[in-house]
């Protein structure tokens, strides 16, 4: 596949690894914000090929992981209603709520369906005027343009049976929360390439300057990841703290303007609770008041929600990069992808799932 295969070329990977090794004179701690990049580092074994002086800390960029438990429980309540067709991206179905997950709701007779695009949920609503179609609109800036467009389409079509349960989060406030924490160890960030494809990287220079950290926009293939690491290492070694783009083929400084315009039309910044982390000011997007009629929380009031996290799960510390999955006593014992106690063991972007899937395989071999 063009734009993928050539970025997996082993010779280029070796060259970049050598360059990184040659540039390094002391230990550094880097965080890749995006869980997709965590998986890519582990999948390709790059974490084991990088010099040991370089520590990769995995960030909170896993939308499934940070969706607050209250919102999962609310989704489960709404999905169980007989008039509702509940639609979601596939990776939400096994995320544990306080007592069950969406699969369990489906097994008990709830109409829970996986969609690839939120536009499919709009089409479902058009085709089932007698039912209420709810879409679980979660994700970072990457997913927001699609979810915003679904709301806009429903608005333009005058649909009265479509609504969204919104739990959108944004990367820059999360980076600031990490850097502002007294326990922070991160010295440079790899910014999530696909978030930047949408948003550009004009939000990052003030953060890089304020906290004196290099931020490098980074892609997802091995060559992309290593170019991001190399750029960050070179800056750290030179004492620079700039914003750099190492994913030029997909990302521009301005980002995708038409997508940003639709996001801004439908959503507004709101304070958002992150599962395991807590409330981060202005770190989410919520529907603007003019789209209130599409707000599933208002359409289906579910009353007071009492949440209960597993006492064993240390997802909060994992998501903040304070601990690695194998440091959790439940990891691989009580908590596996088949019996997850926390969201990071479920998601294709969760750090626990990545460690379990790739490191465990290596050990078994």
């Amino acid at each position, binding site marked *: *596949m*063009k*734009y*993928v295969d*050539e970025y997996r070329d082993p*010779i*280029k990977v070796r*060259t*970049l690894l*050598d*360059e990184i090794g040659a540039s390094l004179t002391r230990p550094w701690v880097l965080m890749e914000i*995006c*869980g*997709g990049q965590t998986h890519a580092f582990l999948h390709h074994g790059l974490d084991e090929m990088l010099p040991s002086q370089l520590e990769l800390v995995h960030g909170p*960029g*896993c*939308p*499934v992981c940070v969706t607050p438990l209250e919102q999962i429980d609310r989704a489960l309540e709404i999905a169980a209603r007989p008039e509702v067709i509940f639609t979601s*991206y596939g*990776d939400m179905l096994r995320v544990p709520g306080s007592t069950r997950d969406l699969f369990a709701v489906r097994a008990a007779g709830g109409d829970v369906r996986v969609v*690839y*695009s*939120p*536009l*499919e949920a709009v089409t479902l609503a058009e085709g089932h005027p007698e039912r209420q179609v709810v879409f679980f609109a*979660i*994700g*970072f800036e*990457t*997913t927001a*343009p*699609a979810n915003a*467009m679904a709301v806009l*389409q429903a608005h*333009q079509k005058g649909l009265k049976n479509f609504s969204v349960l919104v739990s959108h989060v944004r990367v820059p406030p999360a980076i600031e929360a990490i850097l502002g924490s007294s326990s922070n160890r991160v010295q440079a960030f790899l910014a*999530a390439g*696909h*978030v930047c*494809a*949408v948003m550009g990287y004009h939000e990052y220079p003030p953060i890089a300057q304020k906290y004196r950290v290099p931020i490098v926009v980074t892609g*997802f293939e091995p*060559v992309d990841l290593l*170019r991001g690491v190399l750029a960050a290492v070179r800056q750290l070694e030179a004492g620079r703290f700039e914003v750099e783009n190492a994913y*030029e*083929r*997909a*990302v521009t400084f301005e980002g*995708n303007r*038409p*997508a940003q315009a*639709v996001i801004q039309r439908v959503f507004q910044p709101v304070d958002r609770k992150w599962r395991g982390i807590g409330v981060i000011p202005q770190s989410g997007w919520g529907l603007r008041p003019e789209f209130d009629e599409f707000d599933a929380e208002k359409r289906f009031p579910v009353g007071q929600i009492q949440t209960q996290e597993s006492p064993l799960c240390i997802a909060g510390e994992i998501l903040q990069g304070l601990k690695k999955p194998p440091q959790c006593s439940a990891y691989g014992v009580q908590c596996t992808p088949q019996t997850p106690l926390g969201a990071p063991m479920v*998601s*294709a*972007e969760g750090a626990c799932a990545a460690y379990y899937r790739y490191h465990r395989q290596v050990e078994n071999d």
Partner: protein
Amino acid sequence: MCLGIPAKIVEIYPQGDLKMAKVDFGGVMKEVCLEYVPEAKVGDYCLIHVGFAISLMDEEEAQETLKLIGEVAAIEDELASEAGSDEVR
């Protein structure tokens, strides 16, 4: 969820008021929305995420990236062969 995959645009058509396309993910065909890359043409490669093209791939930048790494490799090879010839001497 933030994984985007490049795909080649095979066909562009309207659906309601949306610009849609059939795209090819290395043999797997899907329908995606092109509203966010209005300049995209048949044959272009886009980054696709949850059924939407979010970025048009920049061929020139892609070539430049690969060329830069190629040059680094060439310099390293040269240095290595020089070092090797030193040893022979």
